[in-house]
């Protein structure tokens, strides 16, 4: 019984939140890695692109709510998602046409791309704050919990409860669907293959008759979809605040590099790695050891590797460790 309790404890506090946060990071990281692989620069405006997409979804949600439309048990935001995706694609393509295309044709160095992406970051930052304001917004509606801790205790008779929020399940399901479609597209379809070829060797791809304009267009479309979905899922799970989205860019970058920059599958695993280390290393294991150890060996301290204040710092530290050991990332980067 103690053993079961300890497992439930870990599931409740590490595994479930880890999977949710990991999925959100993974979706974001795949977007960053695709931009890096195909367009060959680190996009600092990505966090704000996520914020923009989420903002459109929120506005659309409010509109639907005012019309009295809802999605039953599911959050209305899921209905609003397509509109958000469409507008985000429009914004991405607009910035690509007006800004990035010029530098791509000039074959500028990666640093110039980073700098102009900073400019776009400032602009998107302003746009989001001007339209929706800098404050916390909670736009989650529908059914909140699938399983409450108390219900679980009554059901099983265990000491520890297991709470599962509906947003956590939605996040997982959406991530699975999005990623399976994406990886199917990249690995099985002709367009996906030509995208990978372009990323691998641009000149050779051009020689084989691959249209670079089409590849760039498709990349921005995919990236915008990923950004909006990841942003909306994060906002549903926690809440929407423009500044948090900018900050989330940092663990997303960490996940991207840890997984090997330019490698979508690596970014996927990188997201989960970062999420689980952030949560696992800041969790206090005292109660867990209380269950599995005999009473005489009960721990007196919290058994916490580092305090929760340093949650963000862990992902940065992992990144630096990876950069020292394997600068190409754990899963060999630079091929998508």
């Amino acid at each position, binding site marked *: 019984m103690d053993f079961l309790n300890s497992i439930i404890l870990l599931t409740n506090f590490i595994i479930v939140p880890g999977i949710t946060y990991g999925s959100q990071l993974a979706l974001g990281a795949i977007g960053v890695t695709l931009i890096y692989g195909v367009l060959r620069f680190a996009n600092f405006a990505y966090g704000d692109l996520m914020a923009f997409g989420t903002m459109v979804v929120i506005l659309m949600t409010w509109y639907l709510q005012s019309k009295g439309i809802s999605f039953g048990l599911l959050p209305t935001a899921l209905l609003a998602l397509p509109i958000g995706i469409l507008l985000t694609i429009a914004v991405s393509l607009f910035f690509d046409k007006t800004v990035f295309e010029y530098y791509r044709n000039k074959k500028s160095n990666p640093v110039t791309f*980073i*700098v102009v992406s900073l400019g776009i970051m*400032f602009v998107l930052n*302003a746009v989001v*704050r001007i339209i929706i304001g800098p404050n916390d917004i909670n736009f989650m509606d529908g059914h909140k919990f699938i399983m409450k801790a108390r219900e679980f205790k009554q059901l099983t008779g265990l000491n520890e409860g297991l709470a599962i929020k509906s947003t956590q399940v939605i996040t997982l399901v959406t991530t699975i669907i999005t990623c399976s479609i994406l990886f199917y597209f990249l690995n099985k379809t002709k367009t996906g293959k030509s995208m990978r070829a372009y990323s691998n060797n641009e000149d050779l791809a051009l020689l084989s008759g691959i249209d670079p304009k089409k590849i760039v267009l498709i990349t921005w479309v995919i990236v915008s979809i990923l950004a909006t979905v990841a942003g909306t899922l994060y906002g549903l799970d926690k809440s929407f605040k423009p500044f948090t989205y900018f900050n989330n860019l940092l663990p997303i970058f960490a996940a991207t590099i840890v997984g090997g920059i330019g490698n979508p599958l690596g970014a996927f695993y990188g997201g989960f790695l970062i999420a689980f280390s952030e949560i696992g290393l800041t969790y206090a294991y005292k109660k867990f050891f209380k269950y599995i150890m005999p009473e005489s060996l009960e721990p007196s301290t919290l058994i916490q590797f*580092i305090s929760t204040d340093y949650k963000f710092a862990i992902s940065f530290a992992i990144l630096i460790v990876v*950069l020292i050991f394997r600068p190409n990332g754990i899963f060999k980067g630079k091929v998508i």
Partner: protein
Amino acid sequence: MIKNIDFRICFSVMTILTVLVGLFQSWGIALSMLNLCLISAVMAMGVNIQWGFAGLINFGVMGFLAIGGLATILVSVPPVHEAWSVGGIGILISGLFLAAVVISVFIINKKLSKHKYKNYFVFLIIILSIPLLKFIAGPSINKIESINAATSGFLGGANLPIIFSWFVGAILSALVAFVVGKVCLGLRSDYLAISTLLVSGIIITIVKHEEWLSRGVKNVIGLKRPVPYEVNLQESEWFINLVQFFNSSKLSNVLDPEVKISLLNQLVISSSGVFVKLCFSLIFLVVVFVILYFSEKALNSPWGRMMRAIRDNEEAARAMGKNVVKQHLFIFMLGSAIIGFAGAMLVTYDGLFTPSSYQPLRYTFLIWVMVLLGGTGNNYGAVLGGFVVWFIWIQSAPFAMVVINLFTGHLDETSYIKDHLQNSVPYFRYLMMGLGLLLVMRYRPKGLLPEKVIKN
């Protein structure tokens, strides 16, 4: 230096901006804008040394600024004796432990540089040291933080004049830059950008959460000043005489002695604020001139030529026998030291240290906009960028207000759109920064004052 055309452009722009604000708004606002412009110019010069001279991307500006800010606390705040007596020994021991860890990592790096598992040893030492450090320092930290938690709860500093802290901030920043540079500088440009950004995130987290050191999010207020306080000025004889002298014509028009005295009082109070800011401006101007002078000297010296050679063609410079790694590390430390210096100046000017206010947008990317807009690789460009960008940053809100009123003039006062737009006026500065950066990168990629290529 003075005959230089860039120099003239740079400082006439500064004078014109300050005088304009002084005439149209107020001299107090003009001077505080000028002071922040000067501090920004120092920051921009620091970044320009790294990016303009050597081509190193440092997105960790925020972290080095915070270290400079931390130095003001460690130097100028009076020590909390009670905290030292309960927890001082524990902190010292853990400090020694940390030093031992760092030294052992370096020794392993040097002695076992060929060993297959060298990196794993280093990794193991660092991983093991974190819980150990917590174990050693934890009890003392709890004791220190529990002493007068509302007013102190930290160790305090050395109670020295705050001006020393600027140099301490520079040295501390250089030391941190040494460690960061050792780890990150070998990376490619875009990796370097991301990793320095993340390192600055780690630094901010530490400053924010180690309350025994910096009071963390509880902030330290009421720091010392290198200039007199307004209250003292208002009571001193010579200052009142000075104000009387400058406003003699205004005062002589008033005949009633009581009204005259109250008017004089008002004038003294308002001019004491201006006088304090003027003192700051003078000190900051001296700093800007000194750093500018030495940066120019360095840029035009053989060393500066070597740095540009390394920047423009690293392989060739290496082939000519230049130690690129060493020079990169040195210039990274130098630039970070100047940034740390500016960080200490900023905290001194504000009179308070608020770790939670350090955000990358304001303290990293804005400084970068200054350098890129002003002119990469040109010291005057960096100074000009500091002035212009800070001016836009400060003045874009009133400007946006005017524009919004112009376009929404036909809407009535209760209109939702008008109200909403007026509330979001502060965010128009981001828009201006972004558009400014994009336009400059497109149409003047070398900045307003481009780098001068000297042909000998």
